């Protein structure tokens, strides 16, 4: 076992991990932050997306030890300081951007990374950016709509629900 230290959602944390411990397992089992989901465990679905030093990564495809010293943000770090939903989260609720909710933490983290890079993405840019996030329920239209709305754009032209 090796000691690993990082900052998660603004708090300094540390723990003992094996070489093979994935970042997602450290977050979920080590820290009890179970908002980050494991859908496929094969780098395909994006349910496990978190931010490492501001960049979206699949936490099932990164070792915990590789995040030594890094700033990690998970879905638990996305709400406003008073606990209310952030604009992006609220937009997912308002536009029915989720059904079962399993993909949602990854969708929110990917969408937040997109908006940080590109504050007013087009519909095509959103769809392209979400290439690595799979949703089995919504058919994506309402997710795209929610992200457009969260970036202050008109959503009336997005494909039907």
């Amino acid at each position, binding site marked *: 076992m090796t000691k690993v230290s990082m900052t998660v959602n603004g708090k300094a944390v540390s723990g003992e991990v094996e070489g093979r411990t994935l970042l997602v397992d450290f977050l979920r089992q080590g820290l009890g932050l179970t908002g980050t989901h494991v859908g496929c465990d094969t780098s395909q679905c994006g349910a496990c997306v978190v931010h490492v030093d501001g960049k979206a990564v699949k936490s099932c*495809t*990164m070792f915990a030890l590789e995040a030594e010293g890094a700033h990690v943000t998970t879905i638990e770090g996305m709400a406003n300081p008073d606990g209310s939903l952030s604009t992006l989260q609220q937009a997912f609720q308002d536009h029915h951007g989720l059904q079962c909710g399993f993909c949602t933490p990854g969708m929110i983290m990917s969408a937040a990374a997109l908006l940080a890079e590109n504050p007013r993405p087009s519909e095509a840019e959103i769809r392209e950016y979400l290439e690595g996030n799979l949703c089995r329920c919504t058919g994506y239209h309402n997710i795209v709509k929610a992200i457009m709305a969260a970036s202050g754009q008109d959503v009336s032209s997005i494909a039907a629900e």
Partner: protein
Amino acid sequence: MYNFEIERPGTIEEAVAALAAEEAQALGGGQTLIPTLKARLAAPAKLVSLSGIAELKGLRREGDRLVIGSGTTHAEVAREAAEAYPALAALAGGIGDPAVRNRGTIGGSLANNDPSACYPAAVLASGATVITSTREIAADDFFQGMFTTALDDGEIITSVSFPVPQAASYQKFEQPASRFALVGVFVAKFADGVRVAVTGASEDGVFRWSEAEAALSEDFSADAISGLSVSPEGMIGDLHGTPEYRAHLVKVLTGRAVAAA
């Protein structure tokens, strides 16, 4: 996944020393290696992470060449090569998805030499030089068939030096499930001739289509290759496409690359 220890050296020398250990393996972005370890297709005793080595990162111009550190991510190449070598930046920006591009590196992709990977086509078509911890290897010597390269045990790629072509384009026909190249063609036009490299198609991995190179060096237009054909012999056949289909795509994509270059 079987367990292993992870070492995180800060310099190339330390990494090379660490890799001299029995059953040690380099770890780039892990976007290929971690799935491989999960499937227990590899069982190293030690992973030597290259992510903490600053000298392996970043892009720089060297005269008319673009040199890219092996630890540079696909996302960084997509962003930072956009001006110097747009076709290469576009290729990097089309690998996988944003999260894969934020971790995966050019060095890892080349060392892996997946027969459907994108970078090998760019490196071979550009006539780039792969620079390692011990030597410089010409692209024509580096790729030695599916998942096989000229790299020795414990040798790491440190950078790749690309001559920048006058015009170039990469056309990727995506395998819709994996988003790797079902077939991808990189065409690069230099003052002294045209190079065409094909990925995704051959059972021997990335290769140069020399008939097309000769025709395009005479006349750089899609029409110049209209009379040529690619033999399906030795092409990959799987549930995604027959050898004949892939052979056909090689020609179609080469034409598109010339038109787009």
